[in-house]
């Protein structure tokens, strides 16, 4: 049964994180020089501590040395971290997500033996998946409900060298976590084979250059890769199911709604700041909180935040319980996508309401409110945007099946 009473472990996790955010992250991240939206550099001094709280290995199974957190716990944790800093939350939630996919599901035993010990040991070891190239267009858009294959044009190639090693050539763009990743899963075309495969590329592989993006329109560190005769051993090729796993985590619409959880955390921080300020700022002879106009705005904000969290938690629970789709307990719809669209639209409004409470201070670069508005706007306009996501939901509503589709249908 879907149960909203958190387990003692989940509560402890949440409270530990909340406390850590208050004590350690906020004092650093709310300084004037850290809330400039154009500077997304991470506080290196905090990252090891976040790792030691288990955030890197959160979703990795306990058997393999991780925390083994379920999807709902991961969302709770991501919301808490994002309330402190969206970039830290993005970095760790991506590594945690990929840790589970790569080490628990995609790698062979030999591959795992090679990379897992270093991953567990090193607090600075992050993961990244490089599947996007310049010009990659995964929008449904004009192809909504049309029998056109939406195949991504992957130009990066992996070729066998005479000694059996793989030689990778190509460019990858907008790779989340790239500047911090020690291990990449790089998508490439393999000569003579259909489709694409993923190849494990350590950050120190010869022929790999990583360039950090200075001001990405995204959360967390981001960068591009240049692979020039980049050489990795023969056994670094992930098997075919890895492609499905890595793609499905993004495209199925039934995955873990980590991204909306991050979005929620940002808006919650804005809301909490506004609630605090409304109680101390006096105008019109009494605290802002005692004015109907401000009270109603903050109530509207609370409504958006609570409804968004309900949608996120439902989707998170559903991703842990696929049987609930199967027995029709849940609608045959991409609940992750639904949570993402609702959260994206509602949280921008929430952050704007919160900023309004601060008057002119709401637009000042040395105050956090403009950052929250910017960060929620980034969430709404990340990837293909809410408009395209709605088309994916609509294809699920009408059970549209694309004959030559290389991607799973939304609600699968």
């Amino acid at each position, binding site marked *: 049964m879907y149960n909203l009473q958190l387990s003692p472990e989940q509560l402890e996790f949440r409270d530990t994180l909340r406390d850590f955010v208050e004590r350690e992250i906020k004092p650093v991240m709310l300084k004037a020089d850290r809330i400039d*939206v*154009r500077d997304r550099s991470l506080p290196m001094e905090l990252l090891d501590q976040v790792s030691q709280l288990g955030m890197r290995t959160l979703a990795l199974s306990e058997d393999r040395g991780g925390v083994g957190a379920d999807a709902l716990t991961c969302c709770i944790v991501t919301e808490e971290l994002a309330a402190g800093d969206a970039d830290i939350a993005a970095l760790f939630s991506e590594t945690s997500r990929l840790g589970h996919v790569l080490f628990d599901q995609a790698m062979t035993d030999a591959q795992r033996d090679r990379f897992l010990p270093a991953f567990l040991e090193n607090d600075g070891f992050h993961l990244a998946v490089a599947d*996007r190239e*310049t010009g*990659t*267009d995964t*929008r449904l*858009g*004009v*192809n909504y409900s049309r029998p*056109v294959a939406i195949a991504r044009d992957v130009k990066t190639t992996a070729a066998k060298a005479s000694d059996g090693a793989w030689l990778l050539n190509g460019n990858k*763009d*907008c790779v989340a976590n790239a500047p911090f990743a020690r291990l990449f899963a790089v998508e490439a075309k393999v000569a003579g084979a259909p489709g694409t495969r993923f190849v494990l590329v350590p950050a120190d592989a010869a022929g790999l250059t990583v360039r950090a*993006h200075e001001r*990405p*329109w*995204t959360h967390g560190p*981001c960068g591009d890769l240049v692979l020039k005769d980049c050489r990795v051993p023969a056994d670094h090729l992930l098997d075919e199911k890895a492609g499905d796993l890595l793609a499905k985590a993004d495209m199925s619409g039934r995955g873990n709604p980590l991204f909306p959880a991050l979005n929620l955390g940002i808006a919650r921080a804005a809301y909490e700041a506004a609630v605090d300020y409304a109680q101390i700022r006096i*105008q*019109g*002879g009494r605290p802002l909180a005692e*004015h109907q*106009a*401000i009270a109603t*705005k903050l109530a509207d904000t609370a409504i958006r935040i609570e409804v968004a969290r309900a949608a996120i938690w439902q989707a998170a629970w559903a991703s842990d319980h696929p049987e609930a789709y199967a027995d029709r307990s849940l609608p045959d719809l991409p609940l992750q996508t639904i949570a993402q669209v609702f959260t994206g639209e509602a949280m*921008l409004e929430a952050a*704007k309401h919160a*900023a*309004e409470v601060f*008057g*002119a201070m*709401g*637009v*000042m*670069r*040395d105050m956090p409110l*403009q950052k929250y*508005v*910017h960060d929620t*706007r*980034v969430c709404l*306009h*990340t*990837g*293909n*945007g*809410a*408009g395209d996501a709605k*088309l994916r939901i609509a294809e699920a509503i009408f059970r549209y099946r694309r004959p030559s589709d290389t991607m799973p249908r939304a609600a699968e």
Partner: protein
Amino acid sequence: MDFSLSNEQRHWQETARKFADEEIRPISLERDAIETARETWDWDIIKKGSKLGFRTLAVPKEWGGHGTDFVTQALVMTELAKADSAISKAFSQNWKWSHLISKSCTEEQKQRFLPPFVADDTFVLGKGITEPGAGSDNRLPPDDDPKAGLKLKAERKGDEWILNGEKAFIANAPVGKLFFIDARTDATVPLRQGTTMFLVPHDTPGFRIGKVFNKSGWRFYQNGEMIFENARVPHANVVGEVGGAVRKAGGQGGDTTGGDIFGDLELAANGLGICADACETAMRYAKSAKQGGQVLFAQQNVQLQINKMFMLTETLRSFVMRVAWEHDKKIHSFNAGLAMNYSTYVVQEVTELYMNVRGADGCRMDHHTDKLCRDAIIWTHLAGDTVQQMKVARRLAR
């Protein structure tokens, strides 16, 4: 009903459009990207615009200005804002206070301040009302609380007033040469009765500018702190009567074409410029950028978003022009305030729709699109927050 423009109005509109296209647009993103708040201002563009008349547009002809009507002023603000909202505001801020000089200053004061203003291409004006502890309280002063509202103190000593206190977020403070400053001359009565307006030149002894605020939008247009430490202002610089500042700003509904009412029209007309820019750019983008082998405009959803953008923009245009026309005809109306409130909704909705049409390009957002959204957010606290809405509602109820 006649919506046609006179030759003079069309002339100003075309001059503004040409200046916006040739001079403002090319520097807009560059100025926006400057990191240091104190360095975003560009005197070259101000001088160029001043020579074309955009600084002194609202000064009466007999004082050497252009004496344009409100319709012309609305047209020009919109055209300039279409290229850069903040630069447009940097010019029109001078009109706002030119109106105030014309309506409220004595002949002697006009003689002292208007000729130097008209003659100097780098002479810009500002007005200081807001203080760190008094923003909304100045807009909606509670009638029963003398403590609420601005606190900058002015005490008379012989022929001088001694000013002490601080102003915050004051537009043009870092660059202006002459300011209208609201100060408390009687702290025992509510704001409306106890406030006096002073003309304060930038080089007044005891008066200096503090920090320049680092805003997320309207980067070009600077807001600064003002610090008064025994600043000495001659009694001859009192605007109107002692204790009459709030009435002079048009707040009591007597003079509905004065500074404050122009300010409402100004924000609406400026916002309209942003919307016009967003509409034009969105249409151009939708007709050229492709997805799945077709232009974006082929998609129903893109057509619907563009429809809404134009629908809202043209509705705002109708309202702005009606308000300007009503001002010119001296028709008593509260529409300026409503247009200002409405422009907040429209400018934010239209820029957000524009961002939807545009979308993120992977992990990048087009700078221009981002700028329009950041500029539009400025409207919230200036024009459309709950205080500004209630203020207009209370005008309507009078």
